[in-house]
């Protein structure tokens, strides 16, 4: 064996060992959840009882619906607020771009836990206006998903030359509204999808706001039910992970050649750039 | 052990093969570099020239064959024990080190003490004309300056062989010419045996003592630039080195008929029958003549010499004339063509 071959063999060994060990660390808890949630503690064999509760337990079912509706509402409000604003800033008020980025990324440095402390009074107002419904969380969740959605949309808008497209459309007689809805938006479809998917995944996994404001979303109920039926909680946990995983993997396929960058909306940082621009990965953790 | 400055060593590549699966990057390359000379390996991308250089550097290993430096077989010696200085295409400077520290890097590994290291680095930076940029980082230097530092870094360790891997290809035209002359000057000054890999024939012809033209993993011809240009051994070399007109020709009794004229062929290897004549632009003479068989398409004036594009029937041709010979020629002028019979190469069609 030449020294070069020896070095290559060493590298291969290193890679296999590291990837297998790390892979096991990530796989074992997931498999344990599957095993735990289907185990029959009172008899032998397997049981799907805990999984059946996902639809039959009214509390759990209700919370799943609440969380899904919240996810949709959050996506809608996020898109309505963010997309026209970001396009408009690029087109007409570029000097707002830097402050806009600063504020959109700010929730990465101000933990959700801090926001919820400061939002108590705002939530009282929301309850006064909309009643005591979990859907007021929509307003808070948009803040939560802001950095991730911003990055996805920013990447999409940077890939096209918005001002030139707009000038071309306007020279053909389009108004500003037409420029945004008929020219720019169709060109950033992947980015809209990324922003929406990442938002859904975050909302479905959110616990901090809902729990401290006492609304029964999916994660809150999972936590609540654990005392009565741990298997049910584990089954619901695994289901919610799988759902989010499917969403994010579809997203990485959709955004295709960019190798899942959007999923990991996560900061392709060039060597040594400031982490302030990177995501604090687990927004809801 | 180490050669004194100014005395290069001999480098031999013997029967080198490098196969990647079924592709043969090198298919029996034989090449000898005489002590102190600069040999350029020239060829299109994928011809194996870079593979040859990387094998000589120890960054790649041959499937079979030997590498000899100063008579010593170094085929299995790892790259870091070969004592060769290499300049890469681009971006090879360590970005976290200043120009000075980059140049000192190899000396530091050789445990040269700090003072001598600094002195040597300054001497090298001076040699490449960058003494005043010693404390800059790569990102603060232009592309040309970075390559000069890379050259200084490669030479600082007094390498037995200097390897240049298309060091100019990432630079813009003006800097390229300037740095080309600079590298040649430095190489002559230190006298290190040098292998230079390029796809740019102008670069190869201008810098090298001898040029090796490669194709499909094999050396086609190794000769001085003048010889290569004047007497290419085959159509590939003729085509790759310098601009060539390919003209249908008829050979009979030692004479070649082409473009409506007839000249004597000097090349004995041409067999009778139909062939293709390879004509350098300067071998094609042009004279205004209303009854001529060709017509000027356009004139590209570029200083001392100018190029003429011509059409004779279906045939497109290029001719090169000195500025004064241009009078009376413009687009549309009908002309009569002549052929400078000396060094006329005719190949099979």
């Amino acid at each position, binding site marked *: 064996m030449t020294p070069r071959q020896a070095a290559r063999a060493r590298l291969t060994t290193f890679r296999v060992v590291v990837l297998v060990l790390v892979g096991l660390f990530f796989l074992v808890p997931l498999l344990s*959840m599957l095993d*735990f949630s289907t185990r029959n503690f009172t008899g032998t064999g397997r049981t799907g009882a805990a999984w059946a509760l996902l639809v039959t337990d009214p509390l759990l079912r209700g919370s799943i619906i609440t969380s899904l509706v919240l996810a949709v509402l959050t996506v809608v409000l996020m898109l309505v607020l963010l997309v026209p604003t970001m396009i*408009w800033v690029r087109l*007409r008020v570029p000097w707002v771009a830097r402050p806009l980025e600063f504020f959109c990324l700010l929730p990465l440095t101000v933990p959700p836990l801090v926001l919820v*402390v400061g939002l108590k009074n705002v939530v009282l107002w929301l309850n006064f206006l909309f009643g005591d419904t979990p859907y007021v969380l929509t307003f808070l969740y948009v803040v939560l998903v802001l950095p991730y959605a911003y990055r996805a949309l920013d990447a999409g808008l940077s890939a096209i030359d918005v001002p030139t497209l707009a000038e071309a459309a306007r020279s053909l007689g389009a108004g500003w509204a037409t420029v945004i809805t008929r020219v720019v938006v169709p060109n950033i479809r992947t980015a809209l999808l990324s922003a929406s998917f990442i938002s859904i995944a975050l909302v479905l996994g959110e*616990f901090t706001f809902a729990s401290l404001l006492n609304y029964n979303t999916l994660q809150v109920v999972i936590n609540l039910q654990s005392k009565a039926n741990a298997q049910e909680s584990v089954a619901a946990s695994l289901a919610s992970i799988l759902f989010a995983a499917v969403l994010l993997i579809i997203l990485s396929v959709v955004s295709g050649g960019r190798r899942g960058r959007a*999923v990991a909306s996560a900061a392709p940082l060039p060597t040594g750039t400031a982490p302030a621009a*990177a995501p604090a990965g687990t927004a809801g953790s | 052990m180490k050669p004194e400055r100014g005395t290069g060593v001999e480098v031999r590549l013997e029967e080198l093969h490098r196969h990647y699966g079924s592709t043969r990057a090198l298919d029996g390359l034989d090449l000898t570099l005489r002590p102190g000379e600069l040999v350029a390996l020239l060829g299109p991308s994928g011809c194996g020239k870079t593979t040859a250089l990387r094998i000589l550097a120890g960054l790649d290993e041959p499937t079979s064959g030997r590498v000899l430096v100063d008579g010593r077989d170094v085929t299995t010696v790892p790259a*870091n024990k070969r004592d060769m200085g290499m300049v890469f295409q681009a971006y090879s400077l360590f*970005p976290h080190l200043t120009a000075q520290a980059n140049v000192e890097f190899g000396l530091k590994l050789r445990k040269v003490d700090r003072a001598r290291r600094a002195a040597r680095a300054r001497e090298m930076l001076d040699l490449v004309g960058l003494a005043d940029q010693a404390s800059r980082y790569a990102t603060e230097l232009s592309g040309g300056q970075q390559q000069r530092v890379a050259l200084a870094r490669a030479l600082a360790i007094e390498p037995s062989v200097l390897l240049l891997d298309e060091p100019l290809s990432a630079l813009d035209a003006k800097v390229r010419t300037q740095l080309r002359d600079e590298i040649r000057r430095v190489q002559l000054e230190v006298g290190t045996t040098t292998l230079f890999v390029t796809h740019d024939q102008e670069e190869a012809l201008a810098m090298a003592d001898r040029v090796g033209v490669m194709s499909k993993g094999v050396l086609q011809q190794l000769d001085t630039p003048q010889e290569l240009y004047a007497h290419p051994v085959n159509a590939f070399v003729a085509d790759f080195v310098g601009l060539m007109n390919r003209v249908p020709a008829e050979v009979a009794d030692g004479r070649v008929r082409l473009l409506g004229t007839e000249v004597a062929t000097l090349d004995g290897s041409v067999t009778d029958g139909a062939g293709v004549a390879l004509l350098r632009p300067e071998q094609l003479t042009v004279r205004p003549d209303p009854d001529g068989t060709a017509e000027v398409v356009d004139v590209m004036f570029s200083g001392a010499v100018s190029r003429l594009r011509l059409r004779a029937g279906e045939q497109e041709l290029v001719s090169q004339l000195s500025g004064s010979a241009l009078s009376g020629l413009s687009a549309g002028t009908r002309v009569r063509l002549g052929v400078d019979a000396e060094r006329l190469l005719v190949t099979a069609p």
Partner: protein
Amino acid sequence: MARRSGVRLRPALGVLPFGVYLLIFLIVPTVTVLIGAFAENGRPSAANLAALADGSVATALLNSVAVSAVTALIGGVVGALAAYAVVTGRPDGVLRRLVTSVCGVLAQFGGVTLAFAFIATLGISGVVSTWLDAHLGTSLTSSVWLFGLKGLVLVYSYFQIPLMVIVFLPALDGIRPQWREAAANLGATGWQYWRYVGLPLLAPAFLGALLLLFANAFAAYATAAALVSQGSPIIPLWIRTALTSEVVLGRQNFAYALALEMIVVVAAVMIGYTLLVRRTARWIR
């Protein structure tokens, strides 16, 4: 004059709706926290801040810092090794795509679901703990270590490692093969390459990633909330206590002070990183 400034400012009105939203849901709560921390019963007061020095609160801060630092280090080292194992493979290979997608999912996978994943694995009746007790004679099923600080370190690593992979991959991609070859050419052994070139080049990105991971763990709430039901060993759980039981340590605004403490720590980390990069590395543009 008036007309010209009107022309210049009118396009800026387009960002007004989003601006108002940010004001209410991001800026107001942040400012509420900042001001509230310095008040009690509507009057300026340093009492809440002073209470941060209270024995168990101070211990919680130390615990928070320790858990964050340890998980940042574990996540950083393991994540960097895993990223290196991935990056030494084919750049467009299946492995790379798979790992980036999976890490994108796992880095977002925090909170309640993650807590239950580990309860199902290593909890009182967890799959792995039961197996280990039966086969290796450990006593994991009768231990509550998972629900304390050690448990937090293990569970946090689950989202810290993938986050590190995502953040560190681009830094590794930035290491050009020419540098390794140039080093070898100048006489460097593999070890010398890492000592003089590889590690110094990666150090700023690595440190930056560590600080990001630290902030990520420090701000995490949901995982700890689901895992630790007794007591408040870390600062985020103190905030839960302060929010859910109206008056803690006899003070209404104590949650504000705790939230301020979190902002200060996270901000200090981010500023520290920025300064570090600026001071040490002129070579990073």
